[in-house]
């Protein structure tokens, strides 16, 4: 066959003939490279499946207004995770499709099941369902494991100081179980704040660990002590930290619990000179009493109903509920994972109207410039138009 003009000209270059010949050889000896299906997705799936299919394998009532649920993989497989990460479980309740993130409390060293503990919350929606309705054999889909509340060995201290509040103990259970059961060279002090000793989750297990392992110290701090309580009381403040954890400055601190407690502990640590890099926080979802958040517009109660327009739909949206919740109530599908403002999956464009943005929303600079908001932490405070 006559050479094309391209080949002809290339042939005049230094190395031209030689490279054209190499290409001819390579063409004749190479295999077909076109795969069947999406190889990238397939290869990544063992680590990050697009969706987890879970089946409830076991349920334990803690007797403390909280329930331990163990999920197995519906197809027998659960991907690895890092102690401290959560899964976001999708539910359909009364015709509403929504989801809630739950920290995995089991150790990542075993993956026969993921354990979560769901605590009842006042006027809870999904938590009530999880505690009252879910039965062994029920199936769920979820995303994750996700989240960056975890030990990062490159720059975190091997000595840790955990601050847990209420159900915020869950990610720490995974971390503690991993460190102790796998005999890792790390040292943990846990300060666990609870209203009453009875309400403290996993108390017996934690007390037993503290007995057995010299690298684990456990202090339960009770805010509403009954007569006769011998242990620590009050809030976890600077005085208490300095007294119970004299080497706090050498430790990386991790905080997980209700937002008020989370903010308080952070302030206390800062007042003690602990730098930002040593304070890691889990944003345990959005607070329910958003109208008490600093900066909330005066005069709004959280109960006003505004019009939320998305495409050609107009939806009722309550000021005290996130735009994400309003969309879910109306059956509009939105991508979602952390429900805490961090992952940006629920991002939507604010076309017009006013919204209240709760703290902790990790927005990109470009999103601020172009009016994108994370709908899980954005509240309508007037009629609003958004675009998905």
């Amino acid at each position: 066959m006559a050479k094309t003009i391209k080949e002809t000209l290339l042939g005049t270059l230094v190395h031209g003939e030689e490279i054209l010949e190499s290409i001819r050889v390579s063409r004749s000896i190479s295999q077909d490279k076109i795969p069947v299906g999406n190889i990238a997705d397939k290869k990544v799936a063992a680590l990050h499946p697009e969706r987890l299919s879970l089946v409830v394998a076991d349920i334990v009532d803690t007797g403390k207004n909280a329930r331990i649920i163990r999920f197995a993989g519906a197809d027998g497989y659960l991907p690895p995770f890092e102690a401290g990460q959560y899964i976001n479980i999708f539910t359909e309740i009364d015709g509403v499709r929504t989801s809630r993130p739950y920290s995995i409390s089991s150790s990542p060293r075993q993956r026969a099941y993921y354990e979560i503990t769901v605590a009842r919350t006042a006027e809870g929606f999904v938590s009530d369902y999880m505690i009252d309705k879910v039965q062994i054999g029920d199936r769920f889909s979820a995303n994750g494991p996700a989240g960056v509340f975890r030990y990062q060995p490159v720059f975190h201290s091997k000595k840790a100081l955990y601050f847990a509040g209420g159900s915020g103990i869950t990610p720490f259970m995974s971390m503690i179980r991993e460190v102790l059961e796998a005999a890792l060279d790390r040292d943990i002090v846990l300060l666990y704040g609870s209203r009453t000793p009875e309400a403290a989750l996993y108390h017996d297990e934690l007390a037993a660990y503290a007995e057995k392992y010299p690298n684990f110290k456990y202090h339960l701090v009770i805010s509403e002590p009954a007569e006769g309580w011998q242990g620590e009381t009050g809030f976890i403040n600077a005085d208490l930290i300095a007294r119970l954890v004299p080497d706090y400055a050498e430790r990386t601190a991790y905080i997980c619990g209700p937002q008020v407690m989370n903010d308080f502990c952070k302030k206390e640590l800062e007042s003690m000179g602990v730098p930002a890099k040593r304070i890691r926080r889990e944003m345990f979802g959005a607070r329910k009493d958003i109208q008490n958040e600093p900066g909330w517009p005066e005069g709004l109660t959280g109960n006003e109903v505004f019009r939320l327009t998305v495409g050609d739909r107009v939806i009722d949206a309550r000021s005290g509920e996130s735009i994400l919740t309003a969309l879910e109530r109306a059956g509009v599908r939105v991508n979602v994972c952390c429900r805490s403002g961090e992952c940006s999956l629920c991002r939507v464009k604010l076309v017009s109207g006013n919204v209240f943005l709760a703290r902790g929303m990790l927005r990109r600079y470009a999103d601020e410039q172009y009016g994108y908001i994370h709908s899980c932490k954005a509240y309508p405070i007037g009629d609003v138009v958004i675009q998905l």
Partner: protein
Amino acid sequence: MEQYDVIVIGAGNGGLAAAATLAEKGKRVILFERHNIPGGCGSSFRRGRFEFEIALHQLSHMGTPENPGPLREQFARYGILDEIDWIEIKELFRVNFPDGTGVSLPADREKCVAHLCKEFPAEAEAIKEYFKVVYDFCDESTAFAAQSAKSTGEPGALKKLIMKTGFPRIYPTLAKYALKSTQEVLDEFFKDPKLQLALSAYWCFMGMPPERFPFAILAKCTYFYTETKPHYLRGTSMMMNQAIMEAIGRMGGVVRLNCGVKRIMLENGAAVGVVDENGVEYRAKKIISNISPLTTYGALLAPEEVPESAREYLKPYTVGISALTCFIGLDCTPEEIGFTTSFTLNYESLDANKDFRDAYQLLPDHDPLVATCYTVDDPSVSPPGTSIITAGTLKYSAEWEKLTPEQYYEMKYEAGRRIVARLEKMYPGFTEHIEEMEIATPLTHMRYLNHPGGAIYGYEQDRMQSVFFFPAESKIPNLEFASGWVTSCGFGPNYQYADGVASKIAAEV
């Protein structure tokens, strides 16, 4: 069923630019992106007080307002130029050697030559000669491209003969250097290995070591980055993505995020539309794929729909390299830790080709280390008193793919530890200042880009697969490609290439 002139699959740089140009030309266009944000490689993520850029170290082809480059003109057409704060970078890069010395290159031909002549006086003449060759090469290349654009179709046998003898005379530098490797040219000009490394740093932007890196690409990188000045911008490459996406909407186009394409529909072997991940069908006269040809044919078509000619055509092409990158937020300024140039390439020995072989290994021990401190040129990219550094090496995914899921996290942190240890050696006290840090492996890139091998630069950009041999042809009527897989990788080249593809299609539909 929704009907469009053109459907674009993937909102990477190529997809965004293609859709913008089509919308600008009044075409009905829809752009699908499976991720929740636009940008592909070029995007960002947040951790704590920091926002990390994933890909962009230096934007090429911008030029200055007085002396605009092609990209500035393209952005002006989209009407987005003034929406972004552009940051001109004063130095091309700094190369650091294992003995603690290093060389920085100013982004100005005369200053650069003068500086190098001062640093390497014994080779001053060769340095001047080298730069002349680089510039002649690019001038001839531009002239030849302009000439070729005028001609259409295959010339006759006689014309071919004339061109064959004429070409080396009209374009002598092209004829001599266009198919040489970087190493070959450097050896021809220079003796000092440090000087060779100082001039060849752009190999890492294409992921090919000097012995395989086409000199043609090095010459163009050197020329374009010097003449149009390397740029960065406030707010990471997400600012460009968002600006272009907004412009597409403004000009009448449609963008669907969170909406991957699942299938391309064929009729009589020609592309007629796509099906999205929700099962919705869309029709169009043309389809532009911004994803790899491998995934386009392999995942968006049934095996029996893939033309034999496509299988033949893609046979010699090898999936390229991925990366292992640490994204680091420091609680101190760049000065405190000793960073003075935004973009540095750090060597463990003076043999880049040998060190590069570690790219096939799991862990980064000798691999040349690319470290960029974005805060050097614009302190406002991170909060006051902090800095952002991304440091990493090029890595093939093969060894990472072999890990069991159980081994993955451990190895990822081990890799991060080694990179940080190398930074600690160069910048004592570095580790103590880390406030946030994430590690991206080849599998991370595979997850977010959905590219085979987690490839960040498409196919291997060596002399047999790039420059004159990009696999740009589609073997399916009405399907075209516009991505780093079918042209020179990089932001500037992809925006421009897609602009060209889209302009051609706009004239047809």
